[in-house]
């Protein structure tokens, strides 16, 4: 079928294209992963799309799938607000609006030749997963690769099967911890920062990628910096109220930057003075 809106979309980046849900998978209690089909997709790990639940609204959601798979676009969504709940309720075959991809992603080129430490907290593993796919697909380009993951409880561990498969690899160090656990859990309990000191990497030649709650990222960034990882080699993915996604509306302004256009991935050296402010 001809896309009647292709010309209008080319002229106006605010007009979404209509795609279809191909698959819906429940990850954990309030988190689902949607696979979208309907074209050739190209994105850089760390970028996001604006997804529309028609009749409800639009939300910025990071791509969580494999950048090598151009046929399917994967997003992992936590149902917390009206739009994200509506998106999470979409079923295979239903339409979804799509604009993007937007923003600057993870610095995978800069990471080449370095040890790479990936620290994810909660849903923060989703925007980092495309970077992990790329790191593992081009494993020979990097030094040691470490994935440290923190979650609220064992029930809140995202992509559990994949984490377990990665844990079995000899060329990837994976450690997970949870904040709280009951009797049956045999893994680590404690905050994610406790994993950093024990991980195998050389701080002097390490590039770190962090995504999770801001408080967590702040503590992790400071711990890495204390160990000797330069602030310009610690990258954080920020989350703000993104509306236009192209730096027009200013909703996601964060000090002197727009998160949608200049980020969402920033070096800690750029954010250090901003991220600890009470209100900005």
């Amino acid at each position, binding site marked *: 079928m001809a896309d009647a809106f292709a010309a209008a979309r080319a002229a106006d980046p605010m007009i979404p294209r209509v795609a279809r849900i191909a698959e819906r998978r429940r990850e954990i209690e309030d988190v689902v992963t949607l696979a979208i089909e309907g074209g050739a997709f190209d994105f850089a790990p760390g970028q996001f799309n604006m997804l529309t639940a028609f009749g409800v609204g639009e939300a910025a959601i990071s791509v969580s799938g494999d950048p090598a798979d151009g046929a399917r676009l994967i997003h992992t969504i*936590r149902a*917390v607000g009206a739009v994200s709940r509506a998106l999470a309720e979409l079923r295979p075959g239903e339409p979804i609006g799509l604009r993007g991809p937007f923003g600057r992603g993870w610095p995978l080129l800069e990471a080449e030749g370095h040890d790479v430490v990936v620290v994810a*907290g*909660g*849903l*923060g593993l989703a925007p980092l997963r495309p970077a992990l796919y790329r790191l593992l697909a081009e494993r020979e380009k990097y030094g040691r690769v470490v994935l440290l993951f*923190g*979650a*609220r409880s064992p029930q*809140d561990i995202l992509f559990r099967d994949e984490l377990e498969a990665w844990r079995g690899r000899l060329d990837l160090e994976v450690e997970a*911890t949870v*904040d*709280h*656990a*009951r*009797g049956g*859990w*045999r*893994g*680590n*309990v*404690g*905050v994610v*920062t*406790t994993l950093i000191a*024990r991980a195998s990497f050389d701080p002097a030649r390490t590039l770190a990628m962090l995504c*999770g*709650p801001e*408080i*967590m990222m702040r*503590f992790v960034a400071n711990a890495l910096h204390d160990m000797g990882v330069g602030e310009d080699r610690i990258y954080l993915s920020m989350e703000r109220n993104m509306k236009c996604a192209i730096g027009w509306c200013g909703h996601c302004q964060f000090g002197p930057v727009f998160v949608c256009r200049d980020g969402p991935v920033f070096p800690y050296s750029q954010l250090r003075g901003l991220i600890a402010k009470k209100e900005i």
Partner: protein
Amino acid sequence: MIETIAHIVKEHPFFAEMDAGFVALVSGCAKNARFEAGQFLFREGERADWFYLLRNGRAAIEIRDPARGAVTLQTLREGDVCGLSWLVPPYRWTYDARALERVCAIAVDGACLRRKSEADPRLGYEMMKRFMPPLLERLQAARMQMIDVYGAHG
């Protein structure tokens, strides 16, 4: 080669680069200990007369809740110190410590070390300097866990 307890104490990360005289004093209060998976290193309410420097294996700090069973507050592993309540009166454990797998540890007699620290305040100060970082780290971790950073917005 049989490792002497002094050598084991000296090699443990918790006592890294400690003065040889202090190593000798601590070693005089120390012995090897082993716990099989499921065994308790200590139980809530018991006298806190020993603490453990983990050499291998992992242990869980737990609290018993009649409604929820054992709730794990923290896991410890090789290089960690297990047990801080021996430092301050009333020298009583607040939580359980249970081996998650076989744990090999250096068990240090806290009462013995307290006596030696009273006699030699330099040793006492050295112990405080070594116990303060994990104390602070655990306080900060507890605060982070308390605010639930991975809640609905995480």
